[in-house]
């Protein structure tokens, strides 16, 4: 049974399509990768699920179903509560994702207390456990600190702890390591994988990096121009990519065995093919 199902989602800014008939699903406990070049609409999918689309962008059709509940059919107020209780976000940039004028502790516990109705004491205990779990030394001190007193890696650990705090069934991680140092990136990636496995959380992992995908994902969605090109199991993807664009993407990804081969860009012809595919889709759906 899939925990998150997106069916034929279309979103536009004005007349311009941003998402074109996007369908994807994440099963309970599954890690799904979402890859595509910059501007492909990866973040927009995450935002659509979490209900944080920019006001200029409108969902024109399609369904987003979270554990059997159709989010589009709900009143905004209920939708926010359902999302807050069942899903969470690990953001891209830990430097801007913590409120600089609030202490760290309340930023982890606020959802538990305000949205889920925990007692302050329980929430506090839970937060300390989680900080311990994400390997933060001196959790009590960190809880009382302001974000600017902590390093980027520490803050990302805090955000991970905060995302897991309410035991959500789905976590969306939008390029959670791109803003970090290379050495820290590896640790954080490992931590996310560990936490996901331990808590059995479904994870939608947005990234550019097929190397990362191969390490942590079980399934993969390839996106281009807001359109899903391929939706497959991870083994199948690396063995025999179904779409020419996927194949080109794979060829363009650095390989540890042969660094020289990694410099091949996605060929023009492949891009043209994908563009033609998207134009055909737009004609069919009445966009010019």
């Amino acid at each position, binding site marked *: 049974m899939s925990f998150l199902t997106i069916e034929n989602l279309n979103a536009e800014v004005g007349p311009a399509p941003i998402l074109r008939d996007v369908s994807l699903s994440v099963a309970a406990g599954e890690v799904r990768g979402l890859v595509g070049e910059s501007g492909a609409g990866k973040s927009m999918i995450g935002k659509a699920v979490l209900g944080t689309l920019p006001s200029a962008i409108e969902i024109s059709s399609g369904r987003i179903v979270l554990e059997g509940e159709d989010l589009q059919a709900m009143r905004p107020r209920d939708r926010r509560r359902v*999302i807050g209780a069942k899903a969470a976000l690990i*953001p891209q940039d830990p430097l801007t994702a913590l409120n*600089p004028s609030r202490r760290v502790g309340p930023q982890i516990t606020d959802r538990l207390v305000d*949205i889920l109705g925990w007692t302050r004491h329980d929430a506090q205990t839970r937060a300390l456990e989680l900080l311990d779990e994400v390997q933060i030394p001196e959790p009590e001190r960190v809880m009382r600190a302001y974000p600017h007193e902590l390093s980027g890696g520490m803050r990302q650990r805090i955000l991970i702890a905060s995302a897991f705090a309410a035991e959500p069934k789905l976590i969306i991680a939008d390029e959670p390591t791109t803003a970090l140092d290379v050495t820290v990136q590896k640790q954080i990636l490992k931590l996310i994988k560990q936490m996901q496995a331990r808590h059995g959380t479904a994870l939608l992992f947005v990234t550019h990096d097929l190397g990362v995908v191969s390490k942590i994902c079980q399934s993969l969605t390839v996106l281009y121009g807001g359109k899903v090109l391929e939706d497959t199991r991870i083994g199948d993807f690396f063995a025999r990519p179904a779409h020419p664009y996927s194949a080109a993407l794979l060829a363009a990804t650095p390989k540890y065995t042969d660094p020289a081969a990694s410099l091949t860009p996605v060929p023009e012809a492949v891009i043209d093919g994908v563009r033609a595919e998207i134009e055909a889709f737009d004609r069919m759906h009445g966009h010019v």
Partner: protein
Amino acid sequence: MTLIRRILLRLLTMAITLFGVAVIVFFVIRVVPGNPIAMMLPPGAGEEDIARLKALYGLDKTIPEQFVIWLSGVLQGDFGTSITTRQPVLALVLSRLPATLELSVVALVIAVAIGGTLALTGTRMRGTRSEGAIDVANGMALSVPDFLWGLVLILLFGVLWPVFHISGRVSPSLDLPFVTNFYLFESVLRLRFDIWADLVAHMFMPALALAIPLAAIIAQLLKQSLKETMHLDYVTLSRTKGYGENHVITREALPNAVLPTLTLIGVQFTFLIGGTVIIERLFSYEGLGNMAIDAVINRDLPLIQGIVILFALIFSVVNLVVDLTYAALNPRLRHG
């Protein structure tokens, strides 16, 4: 450590500024062509009387001598004697200061309340017609100074729909049991809400006139900085936690958006205090500003000096307080 250095540095610049103000006022006033002594004397007074009076007020000495005498007096808390009322300047000024302070603070509170509400409403309604309406109203309120708003309020609420008093500080018929001149404050302490209501009915119009331009500035700046803050990641993250728009604006965005607005409120508050001079005149409110205009018209040199120095002192203190509040509120500065 940094905080103490900051305070000391500010106190030093404050001292220099105040000294500069003192020098300028002192010398500007003494260029006065009209002779204040002549105005005090009954017609037909002789040269002798003039000389005696001049000696009494120290006006027979050279101007630099007068300045040294005056300044050493000031440093000991002696601002001289008012020529028109023959009372000590310090006592006179201090008796009026509470009225002006109460008026300014009430105006500030009104400005923050209106400006804050408009900014929050505008942010909540961003992209709608209501936001546009708020912007237009802000632009109007900003373009027109307190003096004109005062006149407009007099017309609206003094004549067309007379619900507020437009003249004085308190109804003369009331018996005031107060020991200080902080009437508004003391009336609350003594639980005399009848007097309190009367004071508010008198103070509301001048305070509102002073508050309107400041409210517009606060609304504009706070809304701007709220809108910028609303795009930041931690605000988005808070939305995904299940919080509604109101919570997100007031709890997440507001604390961070307030900081840049705060420094500006400080500077603008000194402008507001400066505005009390004419607004008190307009509403016949018995404060420092009203007294200042009388003093200038009567050429009461010691009194003018005292009032101007006091205003400059208030300005400097307000700036200092704002600076320190800013440092105290900003966690980055506090721990940096």
